[in-house]
């Protein structure tokens, strides 16, 4: 009986899944797999298993969020490796670094307790990152959001996402102090709108949408001045219509969502290929390595979900959606249980980030909402995306613990 429970614990299931996936990829690639890659992959499987085990020992908080995300990561890496070996190896390294950063963030945030007073530093950091993007940015898939430093390229907007959550949390948790400045909420709104405008100018519509949703959600919960929430929603409708009439790239997105078949040659190509792939897979998929995910453009990042649906079936797709739902549910539960207001808003912001980002891109590839380029957190290929997602997860992990206030810490020390 005891053994039965043990083998069915999610940690072991995850382990079995990874080992099976690795075996299948080994057979698929045959002899031309090199030893280093194999070593890294086996190492990662062990690291994930151990991390999940160690985490139950060191944290008094949530044990599920890391499990769920490592499952998502495993599904993602299997698919990426199958599509492109080189990117798969890189992704292995990104994930290893991500797990390392997860623990690093966890310990740093746990040790240092000044995060709620650094609002101006977050603000300056965010603007500096925006300036860097504009000065050194490269254009990729229609959006200027990449910065190259030597060999590496990264997306500053991914880091700004986390800074945004910190700005909002530090503002609303110190509401009394900020009230001394007249119209401080209006200033905050102006700042967030300036972020959104900058993203719009970079043509990074998906990220702009994520920023806006996080802001509206937190404002809706914590703003005392209810008028502002209404103004915010009104402005979004105004800007939405303005954007549609002024900017061609918004119009194209919208038209190719309404009727992609009419523009199948050009604008509608991505979305129709994605739909073909999902339809081709059916309930149980074609089988790993037997489909044609390479027909879909940008399949490693934005359209990874379609590729997974094609080869592993719509059931896996539904599974991924369910995993994201449990993750977001856990995030909200963490936020509700947290007593410290700063960490509560932080947890809320991160849960909304994961939820909204996955909703926007999943909805986009299945043609439920207009498609905007975003990565699917934890699954898509991409260094910045994986690393920032793991940093955000580390923060969420801290938020799931009971945060002692300074006074309580002082008394415990006496």
């Amino acid at each position, binding site marked *: 009986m005891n053994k039965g429970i043990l083998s*069915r*614990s*999610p940690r072991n*299931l*995850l382990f*079995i*899944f990874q080992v*099976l*996936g690795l075996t*299948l990829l080994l*057979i*698929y690639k045959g002899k031309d797999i090199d030893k280093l890659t194999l070593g890294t992959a086996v190492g990662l499987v062990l690291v994930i298993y151990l991390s999940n085990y160690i985490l139950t020992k060191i944290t008094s908080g949530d044990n*599920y969020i890391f*499990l*769920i995300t490592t*499952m998502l990561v495993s*599904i993602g890496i299997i698919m990426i490796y199958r599509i492109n070996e080189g990117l798969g190896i890189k992704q292995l390294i990104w994930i290893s670094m991500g797990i390392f950063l997860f623990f690093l963030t966890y310990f740093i945030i746990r040790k240092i307790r000044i995060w709620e007073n650094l609002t101006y530093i977050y603000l300056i950091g965010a603007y500096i990152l925006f300036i860097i993007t504009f000065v050194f940015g490269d254009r990729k898939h229609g959006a200027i959001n990449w910065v190259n430093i030597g060999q590496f390229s990264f997306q500053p907007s991914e880091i700004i996402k986390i800074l945004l959550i910190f700005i909002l949390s530090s503002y609303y948790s110190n509401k009394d102090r900020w009230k001394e400045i007249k119209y401080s909420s209006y200033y905050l709104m102006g700042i967030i709108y300036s972020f959104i405008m900058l993203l719009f100018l970079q043509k990074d519509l998906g990220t702009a949408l994520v920023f806006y949703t996080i802001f509206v959600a937190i404002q809706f919960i914590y703003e005392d001045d209810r008028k502002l929430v209404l103004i915010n929603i009104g402005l979004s409708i105004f800007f939405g219509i303005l954007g549609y009439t002024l900017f061609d790239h918004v119009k194209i997105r919208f038209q190719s969502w309404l009727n992609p078949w009419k523009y199948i040659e050009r604008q509608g190509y991505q979305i129709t290929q994605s739909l073909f792939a999902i339809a081709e897979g059916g309930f*149980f*998929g*074609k*089988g*790993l*390595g*037997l489909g044609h995910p390479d027909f879909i453009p940008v399949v490693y990042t934005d359209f990874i979900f379609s590729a997974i649906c094609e*080869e*592993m*079936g719509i*059931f*896996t797709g539904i*599974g991924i959606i*369910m*995993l994201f739902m*449990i993750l977001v*549910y*856990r995030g909200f539960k963490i936020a509700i249980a947290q*007593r410290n*207001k700063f960490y509560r808003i932080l947890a809320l912001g991160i849960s909304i980030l994961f939820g909204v980002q996955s909703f926007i891109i999943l909805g986009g590839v299945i043609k439920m909402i207009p498609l905007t380029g975003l990565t699917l957190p934890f699954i898509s290929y991409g260094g910045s995306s994986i690393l920032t997602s793991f940093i955000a997860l580390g923060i969420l992990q801290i938020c799931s613990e*009971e945060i002692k*206030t300074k*006074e*309580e810490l002082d*008394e415990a020390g006496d």
Partner: protein
Amino acid sequence: MYNILALLFKYIFIIIIYLFIFSIIRLIYLDIKGMNVVSFDNKAYIKLINRKDYLPYKIEEYYIIDKVLTLGRHGENHIVVKDPYISKEHFQIVEDEDEYYLEDLGSANGTYLNGDKIYDIVKLQDGDIIKAGQIEFLFVNRK
């Protein structure tokens, strides 16, 4: 050969993913079920009136009165409140023959019952409001 294996594995993958989701949901369910849901039937208790979010220290929403219930800043009280306006031993509620009595334990800032400062032992009625420092409790005894 590989094709057969791939076909087989796709089913196994889906089964494992769903087992994984199921086991996590089961654990979460057990977690929620395990949370102490206390029934308040036939028991007297005090309920916190302040919004929990606005109090910067740890405090519960409900406290059941079992014979005696003490409140104070000191760690040995039933309700420990880390508030500078609360004395080390602030007040206690004692049960005696199905009646409940509120007694101030010589606190510096006093205990208030329905807005009046108490000096002696006072009998509690259902719906009374007890105030100490900035926290307020509602006394409930539905018998």
